[in-house]
């Protein structure tokens, strides 16, 4: 009769997103930096799609409306690190989404930094939920 089911689901969602984003970033960084072995075109496409999906998901979930549990705190965290307002961060997520959708060559150092900051925020959120799961 606890909130455990919901908490467990959130842990799985956040941790799953963290894995997807970091896997995609590894591919993207290899492609952009020409790091051998360079992932083939199909893997690059999949990585681009994963990143776009995650950005779109974050934008959608942090749109006006109720403060969402972990997605809201992720936006707060990224904004804090980047010293921006949440609205400015959302604007940057939007720009990054457009550039990622075009081609890996369009993705600049700023975008990679933003994506890494999202990765860190997801990782921290996953760690916090894990702590809550094991020490409710």
């Amino acid at each position: 009769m606890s909130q455990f089911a919901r908490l467990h689901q959130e842990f799985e969602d956040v941790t799953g997103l963290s894995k997807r984003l970091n896997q995609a970033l590894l591919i993207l960084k290899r492609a952009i930096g020409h790091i051998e072995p360079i992932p083939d075109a199909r893997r690059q496409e999949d990585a681009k799609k994963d990143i776009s999906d995650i950005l779109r998901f974050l934008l959608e979930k942090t749109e006006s409306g109720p403060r969402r549990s972990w997605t809201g705190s992720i936006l707060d965290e990224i904004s804090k690190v980047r010293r921006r307002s949440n609205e400015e961060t959302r604007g940057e997520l939007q720009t990054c989404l457009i550039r990622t959708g075009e081609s890996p060559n369009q993705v600049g150092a700023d975008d990679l930094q933003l994506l890494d900051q999202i990765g860190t925020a997801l990782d921290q959120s996953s760690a916090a939920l894990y702590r809550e799961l094991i020490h409710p």
Partner: protein
Amino acid sequence: MIPLLEGAINALIIRVNHLMTLLNPDHPVSLVRERVRDIFKDLHNQHTSLKQLLVELEGPETLLSNVLRLYNAIAREVYEIEASVVGPLSRWGEEDKKLTVLTVTACKEVKIKEFPVVLATSEMYYRIFPKYGVITVPATESRGLLNLPDLFHELGHYGHYHRQKIFSNRTLVSIRAYLDKTEQEQQRLARPIKPDWPKDFEYVWTNRWAEEIACDVFATFLVGPAYGWANLHLILRQPTPFGFSITHPADAARMDNILRVLKRMELHEPAQEIESAWNKFKQTQGYQPPIEYTFFHPEEVFTAIAEDVEDSIEEAKLHCYDGNRSGVIQILNEAWSRLRSNLANYIEWESQRIENFEISNRI
């Protein structure tokens, strides 16, 4: 850093291998075999991802932060699978079998088609791990009947994640409508509402409370009065029924809602009996609700959830409690009735029922 991370990844690979040896893929109970198969699939994926991480470690430093974060995520998942399902399943025993048989039988009675495995390994109270279809309960639960209605609350969560959402749009609309209404009341009638309350209200209901309340409603529809009694029994062990937090609505509001659902089912007599005991309990304890209690627990949101759950039960063609059914649901209701009317013979009756049940049911 790299040698340490490489060592940690290798240690995690070995841990995943050990976890696989703890589970029996040829388990004699088919339901457990299915769970083991799902867990193996998960562990196999983790193993593949970890091997890939070792390859990534050979790359330049710019990739290291991503490798580290991936390792973190995988490690958490692996330790979580170990603690929540692999450990308990690897110690599968008679108590687990009894509980699982009982739960499967009860599910079949009400036409629930997804059966969880129930393990007597919880350090807390009842818990469900929806992804793995595993419910854990305290060690002695298979030896008594009184808490078992709470299994249906967990089955509500299981259905919510696996079959269909048990609450949906009507609930969300009612949350918004309530906030609009209170905003007007605040402006026109100067209703005393603190500035943070509406924001907090929307957050807790949308993200946390609605699902809990929906699972209470689900269990009440399927088990009937026994769920009301089990809930009151649970409240007896809580510090105050009016306390609530970001994660939990107040027990008092949950109890009142269960009573409303019983009346909605036209089970007026048992609802009255529970209500009378509940009122007596509150009166004896002298608890008073905090000032914000009423604002955070509006009846219209509870009602919208009940309507959503009712629709979802109807759509899934589940059988609601009607007072006439035999089987597990009837036994759970009879247990609560006998406990109150014939306490002297209750323990013997309960043991006998559990024993008879074990003989007549197998999985």
